[in-house]
């Protein structure tokens, strides 16, 4: 009963979920982390938002992280796109609810809706484009002012595979990140460099054991048994 293709009425799925409270069966930890996911007392739901200039590679990072794929030309995101992915970290699983936002400047006015109540943010720039780094700094300032004060914020210098076109030095970004207590990585969605690592690092840094925030769309701690992911992962293709 655990293999649901998307044609089975979602109602059935929800009924089953309500009856059996087997939410964890529907979550798939990434394969390499499977062993760590089978034990542990709690699941953590964390809202994560990606911010950054148009074409910096926000959607590509998410696609790489969630599906392990890369598309040379990724459809431009309008408004925002939603994804979820579960990671196992130490004794808990973290289910990321990811908001991938539109990059064009005029969409800035929509951003608060997405970062409000977020537990984590990845601010993405393109290492070949200095303007995108400037834009990233603006996002950092805005989150410092308006975001959740406990937010885990990462700075991602994407397109690290394009070394020959680099315009933002690693050193410059590292210094900036240190000054602003961000954690920093250069990533490549295309070459799959540091993509899982950045999400994994965020998962590790999320504050544990705290009460759910007032905002329901923010971080919510849910106690649920986590037996089952192994079984559900092996019988699916």
């Amino acid at each position: 009963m655990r293999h649901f293709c998307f044609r089975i009425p979602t109602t059935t799925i929800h009924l089953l979920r309500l009856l059996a409270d087997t939410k964890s069966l529907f979550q798939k930890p990434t394969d390499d982390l499977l062993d760590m996911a089978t034990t542990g007392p709690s699941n953590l739901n964390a809202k994560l938002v990606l911010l950054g200039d148009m074409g910096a590679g926000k959607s590509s990072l998410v696609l790489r992280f969630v599906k392990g794929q890369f598309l040379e030309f990724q459809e431009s995101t309008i408004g925002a796109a939603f994804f979820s992915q579960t990671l196992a970290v130490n004794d808990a699983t973290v289910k990321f609810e990811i908001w991938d936002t539109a990059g064009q400047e005029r969409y800035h006015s929509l951003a608060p809706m997405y970062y409000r109540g977020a537990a984590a943010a990845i601010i993405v720039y393109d290492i070949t484009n200095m303007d995108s780094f400037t834009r990233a700094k603006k996002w950092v300032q805005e989150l410092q002012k308006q975001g959740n004060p406990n937010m885990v914020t990462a700075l991602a210098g994407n397109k690290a595979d394009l070394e020959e076109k680099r315009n933002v030095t690693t050193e410059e970004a590292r210094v900036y990140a240190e000054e602003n207590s961000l954690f920093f990585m250069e990533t490549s969605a295309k070459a799959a460099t540091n993509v899982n690592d950045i999400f994994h690092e965020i998962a590790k840094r999320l504050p544990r054991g705290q009460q759910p925030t007032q905002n329901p769309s923010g971080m919510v701690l849910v106690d649920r048994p986590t037996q089952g992911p192994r079984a559900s992962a092996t019988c699916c293709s």
Partner: protein
Amino acid sequence: MVSSTTPIINQSSIGPLIMYPFQRKTDLPFEIQPDFTFLRQSIHARRANIVVNFQDLYGFMVQGNVDDVNVLNEVREKVREQGRVWWGMEANRGANWYLRTYASSGDLKSSLRFSVLVNGMTLKKLIRKGIPPSLRPKVWFSLSGAAKKKSTVPDSYYDDLTAAVSDKITPATKQIDHDLPRTFPGHPWLDTPEGHAAVRRVLVGYSFRDSDVGYCQGLNYVAAMLLLVMKTEEEAFWMLAVLLENVLVNDCYTDNLSGCHVEQRVFKDLLTKKCPRLSAHLETLGFDVSLVATEWFLCLFSKSLPSETTMRVWDVLFYEGAKVLFNVALAIFKMKEEELLMTLYVGDVIKIIQDTTHNIFDPDDLLTVALDTISFMTTNLSKQRKKQETVVMEELDQRLRRLNTRKLSVKS
């Protein structure tokens, strides 16, 4: 059409439907699928539920199951039937009979003539049932007001405009160039050098016509669909112009998208009125309807609904106005109200909504709910808009001020 090595599991007898078994996900253009775990199928489920790729009426590759293919074939048949009805009307009432209606004549005296009123009512009903794709360019162009708009300027306006701006580089043109390969990637015409060049000329031309709009992401999808329907760049350009300048609410795509913010709030209030239980439930989940509806209103559903369904919405949009966007958005929630009431997480809500919109292959499923079940007064809509406009402007202003004071404090 299909390579001989590819096994064909079902070749439809009507229409050039290309189908091949679903093999690798990586081959497909990326679609937003929020929780991929649900899509993992057991062998058993897969056999019962073969996933196929097929090309729809406007050349888009769609993923669905065998039922969806059958639905699409029925839709093709319905479209042909509609075509016969429309051609019959032309034969009976004369070519361009639809131009002699209340909505387009403007002249009060002639609009009260009985035949004109009858034409108007017939036309509205007929349009709600769908304009046949072959007549769409002609009917849209005249009924939307695009033809009238074009007639107020010299014939060479579009050619002169595109020639004058073809070498210019502005922030808008840079963004347009960046988005060209990202506009429906994989489409057999749009994603070719000619397709890119045509979309570019329309968007760049418009960015110079209205510098307040310039280029807004989302318009790339709208312009691309208009090109697919209208066939000629010039007519697509005028459709875009009439859409932004007359059909939609002001400032949807300008600077801070204030018009779009207004529409979102109006929509939220409408949902509260029409589906109070659902609205309350979504509120408790922390789900704001604009999380999904922003894309709907900015891309006019072109990124969410199958192409013919989108076009059917646009048929009504160009004749009855922007109100239909609310009807359709409400209908999507209404259609899945019971399922949505059982959701526990924001992610589940989005999953249901996206699965629903991506799979409405029969436009009538959506439009029957949107136009027959849901009704509200247009006058209320404009009243609501006016009310929300003040609120939105104030909020955007406040936000801008907060961000600016921060800049000052950083400097000092």
